[in-house]
């Protein structure tokens, strides 16, 4: 039971964390300059946005849950299941970021999930 709870945390917190980071970065807007000074400025702005910190906290939570999970279960069991994150991620992006996930993108996401599972069970 605890394995499934932790797995749910890994997938949900991990994806929610990345969605939060995306939200913060979308607020900053498209980065055009990539010199070190401009990048430092972008970082400075990012870390003044609450979504960024929420994202990092959720990602840390997912990371430590993954470590705990890996202490009980085999990698080849855990990683294929975390591939579900791609589906959850596309759903959350649609719901919370209003991204348009068309049929081709859905097919791509599903193929990626199947592929990751095959790579790890093989």
């Amino acid at each position, binding site marked *: 039971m605890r394995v499934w709870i932790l797995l749910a945390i890994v997938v949900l917190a991990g994806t929610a964390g990345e969605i939060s980071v995306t939200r913060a970065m979308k607020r900053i807007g498209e980065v055009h300059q990539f010199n070190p000074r401009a*990048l430092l400025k972008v970082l400075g702005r990012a870390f003044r946005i609450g979504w960024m910190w929420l994202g990092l906290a959720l990602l840390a939570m997912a990371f430590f849950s993954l470590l705990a999970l890996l202490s009980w279960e085999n990698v080849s069991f855990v990683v294929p299941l975390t591939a579900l994150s791609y589906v959850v*991620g596309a759903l959350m992006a649609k719901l919370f*970021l209003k*991204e348009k*996930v068309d049929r081709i*993108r859905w097919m*791509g996401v599903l193929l990626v999930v199947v*592929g*990751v599972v095959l790579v*790890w069970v093989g």
Partner: protein
Amino acid sequence: MSIARRVRLKTYVLIVLMVAFGATGDVLLGKGMRETGGIALSSPALFIDGIIRGFHNDLVWMGIFSLIFFFLCYMLVLSWADYSFVSPASAISYAVVTFLGWMLLGESVNSTRWLGVLVICLGVFLVGHTPTRTTPEIE
């Protein structure tokens, strides 16, 4: 070059950098942690001890820096590209890592894994043919 093409190219370059830094970081971190004896997960004290020992290893630090660059590229690309584009597209790293392991380290890869690599490539190819951004600029 049109703006749309420039943005697409920029997105691809950053995803390639993400894959490179991410995979390098994982390998260095994994190698370094194994050199220092790995992390025991049996008790919190041993766990923290394992992490602290890891910080005394150069490979671990190189791995951490590589992963920081990975995350920076990730942040940058998400400043314009869809999450639902970047996330599945970066799964190409599974294919790259399998291929490099086979080519450089002589790891044996069975047919199921090759099939997985092929399916991932196909999935990434499809995602790559969707628009990089489907949301309007905010502000």
